[in-house]
């Protein structure tokens, strides 16, 4: 501090080539700080590696297998893992390894799209509620309460059965699942965003920006959202895993993705009858599903640690 004030005494003096005030460390934003923290976290690298593999599977399944997931060899139905079919074959004589690879696409698509939509919808509505306050906040908060009153799976089941006969193409079904999960997933993010915007709003820099003539839209976009979105990003990352599990749950119940779409949930559903006689049929899709969900939850944890200075 003495150092500082001495320099400030002669602010125009030429010898001030070195800027004062704790700049031994280079300038870092909150984001850059978080990135550095992430780079040092083994949790992050393990989850990132797993996720990269699954995403690669979703984009180019042919990189991992040359066998078509719909190539049926009925006489080898229910055969155990072998050099020919690494994970064995299911009732229809499909190669389980190939189907597990091809099944990644549906899960990843559902997870990513649902997360994107819930973040957009929930974030927007939550910000709107907190920024406007008053009756707008009241109405939005009551609406989120109403959604919380409906059990997630029950709501999704109702939605999916109501739309059972429409959108039956591959992407149509995925879209339906995403829609169902988004409808029942946004309220929690909206609540989270609302509360974190409320903590940002009373800060002086929001008042200062307002006092210096910024428009409401600019205040929200440049000043509120960047400061308030941290918690939502963390929860959304963790939710991504949960949405993949929810998709598998719906497919398992027979109302999510349905054959011929290949998905882990569908595979688990198909093989449940052989649980005691041919457990390998259920083992591999379950393993991949668990690994994917685990990877995203681990990533969420790593991101949370990186964004939350208190956890260091």
């Amino acid at each position, binding site marked *: 501090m003495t150092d500082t004030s001495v320099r*400030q005494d002669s602010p125009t003096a030429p010898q001030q080539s070195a800027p004062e005030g704790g700049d031994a460390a280079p300038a870092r*934003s909150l984001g850059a700080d978080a990135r550095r923290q992430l780079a040092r976290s083994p949790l992050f690298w393990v989850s990132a590696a797993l996720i990269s593999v699954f995403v690669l599977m979703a984009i180019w399944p042919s990189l991992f297998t040359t066998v078509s997931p719909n190539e049926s060899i009925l006489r080898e139905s229910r055969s155990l893992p072998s050099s020919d079919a690494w994970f064995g074959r299911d009732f229809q004589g499909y190669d389980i390894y190939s189907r597990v690879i091809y099944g990644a696409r549906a899960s990843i698509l559902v997870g990513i799209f649902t997360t994107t939509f819930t973040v957009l919808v929930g974030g927007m509505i939550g910000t709107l509620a907190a920024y406007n306050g008053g009756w707008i906040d009241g109405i939005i908060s009551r609406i989120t309460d109403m959604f919380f009153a409906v059990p997630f799976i029950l709501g999704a089941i109702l939605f999916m059965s109501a739309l059972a006969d429409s959108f039956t193409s591959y992407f149509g079904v995925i879209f339906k699942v995403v829609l169902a999960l988004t409808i029942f997933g946004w309220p929690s993010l909206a609540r989270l965003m609302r509360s974190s915007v409320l903590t940002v709003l009373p800060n002086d820099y929001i008042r*200062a*920006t307002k*006092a*210096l003539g910024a428009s409401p839209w600019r205040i929200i976009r440049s000043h509120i959202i960047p400061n308030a979105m941290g918690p939502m990003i963390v929860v959304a990352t963790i939710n991504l895993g949960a949405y993949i599990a929810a998709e598998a749950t719906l497919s398992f119940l027979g109302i999510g993705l349905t054959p011929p779409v290949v998905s882990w949930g569908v595979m688990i559903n198909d093989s449940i009858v052989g649980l005691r006689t041919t457990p390998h049929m259920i083992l591999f899709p379950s393993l991949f599903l668990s690994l994917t969900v685990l990877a995203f939850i681990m990533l969420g944890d790593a991101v949370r640690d990186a964004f939350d200075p208190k956890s260091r």
Partner: protein
Amino acid sequence: MTDTTTKTKPSGHTYEPVDGRLLDVEDLHVEFHTEEGVARAINGVSFHLDQGESLAILGESGSGKSVTAQAIMGILDMPPAVIPQGSIRYCGQDLLTMPDEQRRHVRGPEISIIFQDALSSLNPVFPVGWQIAEMFRTHRGMNKSDALDQAVRLMERVQIPAARDRVKAYPHQFSGGMRQRIMIAMAIALDPAVLIADEPTTALDVTVQAQIMSLLQELQEERQMGLILITHDLGVVADVADRIAVMYAGRLVEKANVDELYASPAHPYTRGLLESIPRLDQKGQTLAAIGGLPPNLMRIPPGCAFNPRCRMARDVCRTDVPPLREVAPGRLSACHFAEEVLDA
């Protein structure tokens, strides 16, 4: 300045002062409607500000000085705040009746403000240069690199060393004094005609206080701004202010030129404030203090609000509100016995 910045008008301002008069606040009232009742934060405050003039508004916590600043800026949270009465005219235009969108364009280019705590007044997630540049980008539509150039120039103007290297630094990397300089840079970025400094040095240590005050004074003279300096610190304003308005419980109790006020206060409250400044030649003596506490704004005592703490209070003080009246040429005081105070 580049062409884009000077195109609008010779002065760059949408409004032109009438006879040098920038700001005219008349009979301003502000109330806060809370669940416990109505807090009358400002009860009929009137003052004006001319071009190139600096006015200090002096008062202790809760006297309504910051609320006055926020009312002028239009950043009071309404509700709970209500302005039941009064007008704030900027260059003849009443700000209180102006549509929101029009008023937004007054904030920044015409009237600007510096807050007490510069750390919390700067957005922690953006570099300071970006935040200064934002002023030029939103109000003048400059492109990114031009705006950043301007930001560097402003940072140099407010005497931030190695400005070009520090333009990408974040608020937490600056010391308190430097942050306040950055806040000042943002506030003067658009060449406002009026600058309000709301306790600009309260959060700083004494050596830095003096530097910030002289910077403000310098900028004010250079740009011929009207400066409203809000403070509770008599020492801070002595060098900078031309006129002083003393506030107590939401009313102006005294208005005078700086020198006259310091030489002979015309209100017991002002006298109390002056007496409570520690002085070097009074070593060993007990420091004079004003007894009691400022009134609760929900229950302002009848009569003169200062009467429960006033040594000179008599019966009339407990019943009649003293009007702000001229007690000597150029001296206004709201005390029934101002002449006695002056003579004392």
